[in-house]
């Protein structure tokens, strides 16, 4: 049987505010456990929440960036359940009146087409703390540093039909929130976490099947794997005549396994009700207009500009504009010279390969965009060969020296491009190789002649101590040997 896959996403985005959504504690990641939790975060008796204006600004910016309506009257509710990393015994979140209403995001698919994914809504809420089960034998440690970190939870319509689309959407959302500067986008630290709702239905059917929710995926790769895994699991059940149980599942990316966390019947009754400690927040036009005016360039606009301003093709422009840090790196490099295409090639080649090999992000790169730009300038103006450029790149990366020109000088990588000097070298080498010259000149087959040309290059590079411009040598040779 043929099946249609239906996917909807819920994405938790940690907002990059300095302090928590309802308290003045720092949100910085990685501090000693429980050092960033004050009396409010610990839910000490009598303490009260005070909303963080910046979290609202960020949520509004997000709403504007995904073409959504902004709810003018934003209400917080209590979602009640007991868990040790939830100090108040309820999570303060939004239900009936989320701050961001319906919107949409357009995604580019691998086949070159574009697709619109609708956003159902996005709401503001507080993150819980962390329960640490591994470090304490037979016990659970609780770290409340994260408790109260502001989140927006973005909920999509079930508009995606395969893992590629879901991943493309997730990457686009990552690109939007990092471009806005409202999230640091560091998935390894949990700054973005994905829940995937998946159901299958017979191909062409209008009726949605029973869905499952796979929770807390924190990388694009795990998300892709988890979708493949869950689709296969559901397909196996349905093709054996079974029924899908509506449930929440956990996916273990290291083992490519999933297990049921709780079924619908076991789900909590969260007993939502409006939080009486927080009055409804009224958002006025001027607040929205200020947020609109503070919006930076968004990925779609940046991509169009990269094509226009730098003459990049669609693929390069899409790739370089998606990540705001990478885009900034590219622009810094490209501004040094005129050959943006060559900059793009270097970023996608040597630079990306090196980052991947060392598991670094653009932000951790030891070389700056300006340095890469300088390097590309020296390639373009024939000062160095591509082999020499790789040596310069290496020296920049390892921090041997931070100036491209200084490295070229120190390593003697400068090409000799003085045609007079090069011609003299060619004459001298050819004079010493009369047999090969004759052989070349007697050869009719242009392919073989081209190959034989290479036989002269070795001695020429040796004669120039490796500094002769190979392109010029080639031209002179062809001319002297009589094409």
């Amino acid at each position, binding site marked *: 049987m043929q099946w249609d896959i239906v996917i909807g996403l819920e994405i938790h985005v940690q907002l990059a505010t300095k302090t928590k959504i309802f308290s003045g504690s720092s949100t910085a990641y990685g501090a000693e456990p429980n050092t960033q939790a004050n009396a409010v975060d*610990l839910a*000490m008796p*009598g303490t009260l*929440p005070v909303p963080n204006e910046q979290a609202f600004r960020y949520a509004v910016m997000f709403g504007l960036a995904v073409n959504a309506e902004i709810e003018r009257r934003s209400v917080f509710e209590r979602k009640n359940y007991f868990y040790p990393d939830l100090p108040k015994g309820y999570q303060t979140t939004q239900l009936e009146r989320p701050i961001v209403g319906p919107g949409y995001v357009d995604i580019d698919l691998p086949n070159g087409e574009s697709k619109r994914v609708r956003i159902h809504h996005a709401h503001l809420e507080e993150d819980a703390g962390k329960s640490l089960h591994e470090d304490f034998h037979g016990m659970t440690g609780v770290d409340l540093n994260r408790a109260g970190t502001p989140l927006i939870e973005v909920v999509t319509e079930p508009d995606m039909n395969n893992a590629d689309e879901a991943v493309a959407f997730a990457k686009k959302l990552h690109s939007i929130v990092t471009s806005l500067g409202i999230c640091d986008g560091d998935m390894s630290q949990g700054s973005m976490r994905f829940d995937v709702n998946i159901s299958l239905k017979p191909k062409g059917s209008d009726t949605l099947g029973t869905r499952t929710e796979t929770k807390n995926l924190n990388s694009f790769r795990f998300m892709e794997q988890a979708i493949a895994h869950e689709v296969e699991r559901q397909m196996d059940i349905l093709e054996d005549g079974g029924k899908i149980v509506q449930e929440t599942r956990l996916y273990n990316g290291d083992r490519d396994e999933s297990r049921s966390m709780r079924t619908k019947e076991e789900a909590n009754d969260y*007993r939502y*009700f409006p939080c009486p400690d927080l009055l409804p927040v009224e958002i006025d036009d001027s607040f929205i207009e200020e947020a609109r005016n503070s919006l930076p360039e968004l990925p779609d606009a940046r991509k169009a500009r990269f094509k226009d301003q730098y003459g990049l093709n669609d693929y390069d422009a899409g790739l370089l504009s998606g990540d705001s840090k990478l885009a900034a790196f590219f622009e810094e490099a490209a501004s040094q010279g005129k050959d943006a295409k060559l900059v793009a090639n270097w970023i996608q080649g040597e630079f990306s390969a090196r980052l991947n090999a060392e598991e670094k992000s653009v932000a951790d790169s030891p070389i700056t965009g300006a340095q890469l730009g300088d390097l590309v300038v020296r390639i373009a103006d024939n000062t160095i060969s591509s082999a020499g450029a790789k040596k310069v790149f290496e020296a920049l990366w390892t921090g041997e020296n931070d100036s491209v020109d200084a490295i070229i000088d120190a390593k003697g990588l400068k090409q000799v491009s003085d045609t007079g000097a090069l011609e003299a070298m060619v004459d001298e080498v050819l004079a010493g190789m009369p047999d090969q010259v004759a052989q070349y000149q007697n050869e009719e087959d242009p392919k073989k002649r081209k190959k034989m040309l290479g036989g002269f290059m070795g001695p020429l590079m040796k004669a120039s101590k490796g500094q002769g411009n190979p392109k010029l040598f080639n031209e002179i040779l062809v001319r002297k040997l009589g094409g």
Partner: protein
Amino acid sequence: MHSKSVAELSRDLESRKVSSVELTQEFLDRIKREDSKYNSFITVTEEQALADARMADEQRAAGNATAWTGVPFAHKDIFCTNGVRTTCGSKMLENFVPPYDATVTANFRQAGAVCLGKTNMDEFAMGSSNENSYFGAVTNPWGLSEGSKRVPGGSSGGSAAAVAARLTPAATATDTGGSIRQPAALCGVTGLKPTYGRVSRYGMIAFASSLDQGGTMARTAEDNALMLNVMAGFDPKDSTSIDREVPDYTATLNEPLKGLKIGLPKEYFSDQLSPAMEQQVRNAIKEYEKQGATVKEVSLPNAKLAIAAYYVIAPAEASANLSRFDGVRYGYRCEDPKDLMDLYTRSRAEGFGEEVKRRILVGTYALSAGYFDAYYLKAQKVRRLIQQDFINAFKEVDVLMSPTTPSPAFIQGEKTSDPVTMYLEDVFTIAINLAGVPAMSVPAGFVDGLPVGLQIIGDYFSEARLLNAAHQFQQVTDWHQREPQ
């Protein structure tokens, strides 16, 4: 000295008739000697009080004193006090020492007042008789001479009994459904529940957040005004506190009452009220007419729904507010929990008293899927109707007057077996909390030797007018000066 008002003590301190250390010592001695009869204090902070008194005397000597510098008072044990155990009347917090001050606590500290200790209360402010305290019931100083142990009312029963017994000239209190006014009435003292949002709730342990309001208790209206001067004001730590100018509440106490328009809600003079009580209240209202006030009957048509709405909304909020007492971070934890669920269920089953558990159950039920609309949403609609009743009434009159309670202080144990009878104690006070308007209870006579309270209700932020009306009444009556034997 112990029978003097805050205003008088403040003047005596200013004229060096007495030092704060002497005064503080006198009250501490009285508490030590007398409080075994009343059990009005949970914690007495003798050392801290004397140290604060010495500092206050130094401040007076240095010439930088407020009206409160060196004046002793007490806090209801619901207000968090930095470094001093704060129990909220519960086993759950028997050993809880907050590392922070409530805003109200900090304000009194700032003003130089000397806190004698923390007063007894119904557990988590849930009760109308102060019989729900883990630290034992409080006994009303009135009626003791006849050999009957009567309740002081609740939940601020410790504050009311301590003020009535002259163990402290003043005490803070809180009022969610009548918890200031009802004990003030039953103990013959003057109490004020301000407009919701007038006094910060930060550090005041929550029962029902949308109804809780900190307030004042003392023997005179003037002392209530002095207290409110310290307590009222916007607090950036409480999003529900209101940013509005705070007047000097003592400045308008002596305004004449001529032309004051008094409304008598007919629903509050119903058959629930005993004829003897009604007589006392009507006599009090006559005093106002003598001073030139006019009286007319008004109606609060939805008032009869107040108790039903309250006992949905308050428990619903409480059920969530009390979830933080889970045995994980602070407070009572059961012995040897075998797993997480055991830790939760036993800590809460053993740490909370019966009435608290009853209200958590009721509130949880009211918020549950399938019941939410019928209970919680319906109650919120009723609440809006009740608010509108008050708004309409205050288009016609300046203040409303009624009895504070349907009957005077009852005998301990009389109503403990039937929670609903107990809930009816607040029949005249509860609607005020739902509406969020301010109200006072002022001593207005006696029935069978037991105090009767006159309730004066005002429009939003009309505390100054209420205090003025109460003060003028106290200029021509002496009910508030009567001392239990």
